[in-house]
């Protein structure tokens, strides 16, 4: 075949493959256009999950009749005019590609009325065949209708999933956009049912609650922080994050917007997960919403045609900013789950019986100690019920505790009993506490051990981190680090703390986290400053919730506990152990 340029319609169809994948992507593009046009109310209607018909109605600025043909032409946009603009995109759209792409793969009708009093006109494009502009009837704003999606492309159409799946994706996309624009009202109709109704809100927290649902939104934490990535280059974040207990296995409960645009960014998601580390099981994702505002010069949104991916100029700085902001919100919150008890909430499930049986069997005989059954019983719904018991109190741990048999439940709790009741220990909090105390004792005896490196390790760093290094040097030496600045943007590591290497924690990661902290302080009261860093070290090195522990590891951990004073609170002040008194358990079983 001789080389020929592709016919324009084919070019658009190919481009459409990138922008228009399914009804949800059509809706996203159309809703974003409406927002760009200044709409305050947007209505989306779906038929057949969007496979048969999509309609998006807005009350925005509209398109004048003489510009309609251009609007549906490829690479025509009213939003940017120059390369300079492209660097500072403030609108969702800028490629001028969406309407043309959609028009190339469906029957597209754009009806628009620019302002009150003027008349409406409309244009149709049928799989790339543009028809002429006609007068039409319509209110101020724009109405876009897409039917017969992929009608002339059977292969693409085959890729569409079932109606509920496609509709579900539309809901997801719409909710995501809506999170970033609480001031705009959104409604979604499926066939003739209203399935989403998000009124305009002044308080963004109310929009988040409406989208995340009551359970996750109840006592969610507010994340709010502001900083500068460079002089005159601010970054800020606002959001609502659900408590750790709400974390889900599915990742889609966590949503981000960047300058109002729904994005997926692995770096930022990682930063959030990191902040929750130790509080949720690995593999789970926290639920919540964060809106990041950043100087447009600090980000490139022109990476992906659907614009869901972005490229930060300083990804590491954005990462540590988000991480710190979320961490700070978690730190100020009291994360011990409350244990409210209402008399009527007496557990009625068989799980409780099972729990009782298992316990008595467990205490029955030494060789027959059935970890499996008991662990199972504790893993099941009974465990949740048990934590809801009243009068649960922080426990003075029984001494000597190491001689008791513990078992691990839910990969997170160590459970035993003493004369007074059932004792539940938080493994991460306990290990963290134990290590913190040992590290502190060790630093009193002299600097922590330091492993010299064969050759210096050169690591990139932010200007801020390098700047703080000098101030931090004396303390770092006590911790076993030998680090120097290697220019304005790098650190040179000559030696690292043995302790961190043994615990498989990357010393540089910890170092940068500390240097980048909002509340960084290396000069203040010596002991308090030291304690803060040791706390970070202990937290990173401690076993996590979700780490399965062998019997030997449990025994070792508890043995260490005996040697530690004040072991009943982790360094963050959260309790490490709780006791449910026997009399409370007896009362619940109707024996009291």
């Amino acid at each position, binding site marked *: 075949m001789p080389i020929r340029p592709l016919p324009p319609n084919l070019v658009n169809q190919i481009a459409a493959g990138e922008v228009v994948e399914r009804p949800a992507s059509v809706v996203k593009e159309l809703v974003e256009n409406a927002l760009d046009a200044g709409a305050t109310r947007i209505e989306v209607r779906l038929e057949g999950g969007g496979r048969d018909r999509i309609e998006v109605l807005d009350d925005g600025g509209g398109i004048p009749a003489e510009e309609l043909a251009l609007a549906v032409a490829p690479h025509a946009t009213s939003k940017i005019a120059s390369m300079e603009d492209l660097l500072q995109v403030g609108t969702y759209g800028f490629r001028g590609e969406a309407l043309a792409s959609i028009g190339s793969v469906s029957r597209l009708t754009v009806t628009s009325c620019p302002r009150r009093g003027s008349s409406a006109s409309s244009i149709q494009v049928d799989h790339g065949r543009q028809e002429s502009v006609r007068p039409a009837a319509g209110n101020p704003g724009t109405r876009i209708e897409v039917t017969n999606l992929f009608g002339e492309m059977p292969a693409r159409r085959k890729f569409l999933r079932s109606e509920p799946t496609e509709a579900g994706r539309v809901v997801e996309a719409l909710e995501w956009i809506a999170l970033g624009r609480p001031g705009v009202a959104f409604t979604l109709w499926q066939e003739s049912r209203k399935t989403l109704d998000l009124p305009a809100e002044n308080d963004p927290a109310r929009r988040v609650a409406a989208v995340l649902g009551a359970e996750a939104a109840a006592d969610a934490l507010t994340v709010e922080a502001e900083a500068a990535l460079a002089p005159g280059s601010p970054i800020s974040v606002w959001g609502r994050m659900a408590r750790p207990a709400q974390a889900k296995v599915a990742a889609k409960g966590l949503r981000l917007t960047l300058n109002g645009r729904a994005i997926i960014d692995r770096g930022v998601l990682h930063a959030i997960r990191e902040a929750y580390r130790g509080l949720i099981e690995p593999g789970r994702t926290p639920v919540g919403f964060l809106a990041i505002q950043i100087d447009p010069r600090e980000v490139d949104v022109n990476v992906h045609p659907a614009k869901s991916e972005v490229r930060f100029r300083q990804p590491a700085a954005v990462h540590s900013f988000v991480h710190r902001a979320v961490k700070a919100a978690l730190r100020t919150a009291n994360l011990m789950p409350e244990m409210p008890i209402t008399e009527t909430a007496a557990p009625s499930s068989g799980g409780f019986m099972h729990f009782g049986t298992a316990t008595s069997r467990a205490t029955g005989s030494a060789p027959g100690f059935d970890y499996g059954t008991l662990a199972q019983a504790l893993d099941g719904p009974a465990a949740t019920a048990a934590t809801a018991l009243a009068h649960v109190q922080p426990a003075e741990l029984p001494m000597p505790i190491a001689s008791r048999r513990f078992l691990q439940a839910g990969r997170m709790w160590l459970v035993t009993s003493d004369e007074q009741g059932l004792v539940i220990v938080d493994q991460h909090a306990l290990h963290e506490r134990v290590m913190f105390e040992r590290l502190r004792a060790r630093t009193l005896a002299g600097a922590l051990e330091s*492993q*010299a490196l*064969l*050759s210096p390790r050169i690591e990139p760093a932010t200007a801020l981190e390098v700047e703080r290094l000098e101030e931090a040097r004396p303390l770092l030496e006590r911790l076993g*680090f030998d680090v120097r600045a290697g220019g304005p943007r790098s650190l040179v590591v*000559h030696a690292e703390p043995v302790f961190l290497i043994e615990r498989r924690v990357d010393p540089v990661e910890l170092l940068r986290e500390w240097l980048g902290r909002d509340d960084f302080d290396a000069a203040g009261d010596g002991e308090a400053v030291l304690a803060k860093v040791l706390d970070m070290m202990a937290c990173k090195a401690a076993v996590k919730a979700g780490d399965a522990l062998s019997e030997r590891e449990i025994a070792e951990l508890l043995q260490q506990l005996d040697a530690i004073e004040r072991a009943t609170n982790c360094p963050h002040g959260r309790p490490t152990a709780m006791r449910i008194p026997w009399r409370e358990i007896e009362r619940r079983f109707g024996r009291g």
Partner: protein
Amino acid sequence: MKILCDRAVLATAVQLAQQAVATRAAVPALSCIKLTAKDGRLTLQAADKDIAVEVPVAAVEVKEAGEALVPAKKLAEVVGECEGATVGFEVVKHTLTIKAERMKFSILGFDPKEFPSPKDPVTKTEFTVPAETLRRLIVRSVFAAATENTRFAMGGVYMERKAKRLRLVATDGRRLVVTRGDCSSATDGDTVAIVPTKAMNLLNRLASQPDDAVQVAKLEGRLAFTVGEGPEAAKLVTNLIEGTFPPFEDVIPKEHDRKVTCDVQQLLASVRRAGILTTEQSKGVKMGFNATELKISGSSPDVGEAEISMPLTGFQGQPIEIIFNPGYVTEALRLVDSSEITLEMKAPNKPGVFRVGQEFTYVVMPTGQA
């Protein structure tokens, strides 16, 4: 496909192939083992995104040639459970039926065509090394390779062949090991590569017959190892780690002020004992050398302290005290197969070098206070 094989031989081969399979495969085919029966032989193939192996199974009787592609983990479990002397395989429509004494399993498989067919360009063997030598070099180097791939520790083993001399080098940034051995034949010129640790470990297991010869060929960005001869040969092809290995020659000290030769077992036992009462927070053991004695002590404020002494003969130089992570020392001493080892030192803050002849050089940075 219809075959009959020796159960024990099969079990070993399946286990081996399973090691190559990706732990979290993106495509189902990469979590599978492919079985090919033809010309009276059975071959197992497995791969992850970087490594592919081909393991021949001796002792089979092929009644009907054919192919199958089945999940590795399940296949290994099933074969591991089989009893009796022989196991029978039969494939009908991607389903593999396994028959053994009083057992029958049918594993649902995939279309064998989904298994990535190995690119098999014509290659020229660069060198051949006895399996025994290669294994020795691998075992004595991989332990020091970093498990994580950071920029300063490559997460792989550096392999260098110059004429008939072969060196493997590994480091995690805190210690470095260089092992040497001889090839049995080689082309002119050099071979240089950074081989992923996983491939090295697999190769160690593939090369279990000491008398086999291992042929090494370089392909574009990959190394191919052929263990044994002819159709019964096992094969491993691995992608190489790109990048430059840290300039390790520079960190091997060129000179020393102190030198001593010790009995390996005695030194190993002493360091191990001194390390018993150390903790994660107080890890190091202090080794004090003088003309007649080595005193090794380890302690931690909250557990206690140990002091072990062993006699020395022929210590050269001024007395010295140097602290090492005891794990780093014992790990290497366990792998050394000679009875004596030499330790060279310069100063408490300079690396110590353990040597066994020309064949084993282990550089360890001391610990201490920054």
